[in-house]
């Protein structure tokens, strides 16, 4: 299945000089690559990888170009489906562009605004290297003049315990190296956001980097994390010490979970007393996927705005107890 075995950085490497040239080059390379695929699974592999890396601008460009393909074209159907998952489809004066920091970290930024005006989002992807929905669906919700996003990918699938490819061989080394690429302190605000397997690493990174906020969405509790680390031959001790530390300033930590998902609810409720944090239960949600649920409901933009806004929305600020639970619409 070599046709699908490619790294999206190769497809999107910016050799071309202008944005329009880069878009055309990416499209040409996509067509070449997909033309080599012989099975649906090979095409799916390429498409999944692209969904993890593309920007909203690229989605729009591909959608316009592939719309002239025959109606039965897998490429046309794929991009139409992806385009339908763009929550706002807003064309902005400044658009996110992708800059590969290293293989395991991708910066999405725009040639507009300065760090002093922006919030830096360190996004810790889950098992499938994204925030549970296609990356452009998340970026489409964010104003590029107000946000820079660094998406971190856990290719070793060890909850980032074996580091980030290209940055360091363990979590602590990778986060330290990341600081050499980007200074969270230069931004107006910095937030770590992680989903699923990236949830607890986002909380830990927020403490380690003393960020303004750390958000775990559908993340795990610490004993499960520590048990898995033990199985991989990684000591959980430094992570336990980090979680127990109380540096000043200490980030505002939000533990977000689907109320109807027993495992995630149990994990969030169990993690809550281990670290100063706020529990946020999402109602009308039964599965593990908070972001996919919000995307389906058409509420992903407002939900992200509440998670990443300058001040947490009142419903997020409320500490949720078993007695009085807030509903996050």
């Amino acid at each position, binding site marked *: 299945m070599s046709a*699908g075995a490619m790294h999206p950085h190769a497809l999107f490497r910016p050799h071309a000089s202008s944005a329009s040239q880069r878009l055309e080059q990416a499209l040409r390379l996509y067509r070449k690559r997909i033309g080599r695929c012989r*099975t*649906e*699974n090979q095409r799916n592999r390429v498409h999944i990888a692209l969904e993890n890396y593309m920007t909203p601008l690229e989605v729009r460009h591909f959608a316009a170009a592939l719309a002239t393909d025959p109606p039965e074209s897998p490429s046309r159907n794929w991009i139409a489906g992806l385009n339908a998952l763009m929550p706002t489809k807003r064309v902005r004066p400044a658009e996110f562009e992708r800059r590969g920091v290293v293989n395991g970290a991708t910066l999405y930024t725009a040639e507009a605004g300065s760090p002093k005006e922006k919030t830096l989002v360190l996004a810790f992807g889950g098992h499938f290297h994204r925030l549970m929905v296609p990356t452009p669906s998340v970026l489409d919700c964010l104003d590029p003049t107000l946000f820079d996003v660094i998406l971190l990918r856990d290719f070793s699938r060890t909850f980032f315990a074996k580091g980030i490819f290209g940055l360091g061989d363990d979590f602590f080394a990778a986060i330290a190296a990341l600081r050499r690429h980007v200074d969270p302190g230069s931004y107006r605000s910095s937030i770590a956001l992680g989903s699923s397997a990236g949830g607890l690493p986002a909380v830990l990174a927020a403490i380690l980097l003393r960020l303004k906020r750390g958000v775990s969405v559908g993340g795990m509790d610490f004993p499960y994390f520590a048990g898995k680390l033990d199985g991989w031959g990684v000591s959980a001790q430094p992570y336990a010490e980090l979680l127990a530390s109380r540096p000043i300033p200490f980030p505002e930590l939000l533990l977000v979970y689907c109320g109807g998902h027993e495992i995630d609810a149990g994990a969030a409720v169990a993690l809550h007393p281990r670290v100063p944090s706020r529990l946020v239960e999402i109602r009308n949600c039964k599965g593990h996927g908070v972001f996919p649920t919000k995307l389906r409901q058409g509420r992903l933009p407002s939900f992200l705005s509440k998670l990443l806004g300058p001040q947490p929305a009142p419903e997020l600020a409320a500490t949720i107890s078993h007695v009085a639970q807030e509903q996050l619409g």
Partner: protein
Amino acid sequence: MERAIRAPRARDVVFEALKTAAPQTFDDELRRAFLAGTSLKLAELDMDSLAKMEFCIAVELATGITLLPSQLSELASTDAIERRLCEAAVSLKAEE
């Protein structure tokens, strides 16, 4: 060219593919049950469309046999998938 695949190997392939595609629901308890010979219903693994794609990709990478996401609901269980993989390998061997 699809590779010859026997039942024990088909089980290994399905095990590894489930680890990749359903890391949360294919938990330690289900893994132990599967390794002990239990057939799992795919419905209980709660795989979304992305997970089904990843499962089929993993199977194809390991065996060369194309199993499509749309076929999984019809197959419904891990035993049925293993049988399908063995049959595909046998029929291809006969064609050679």
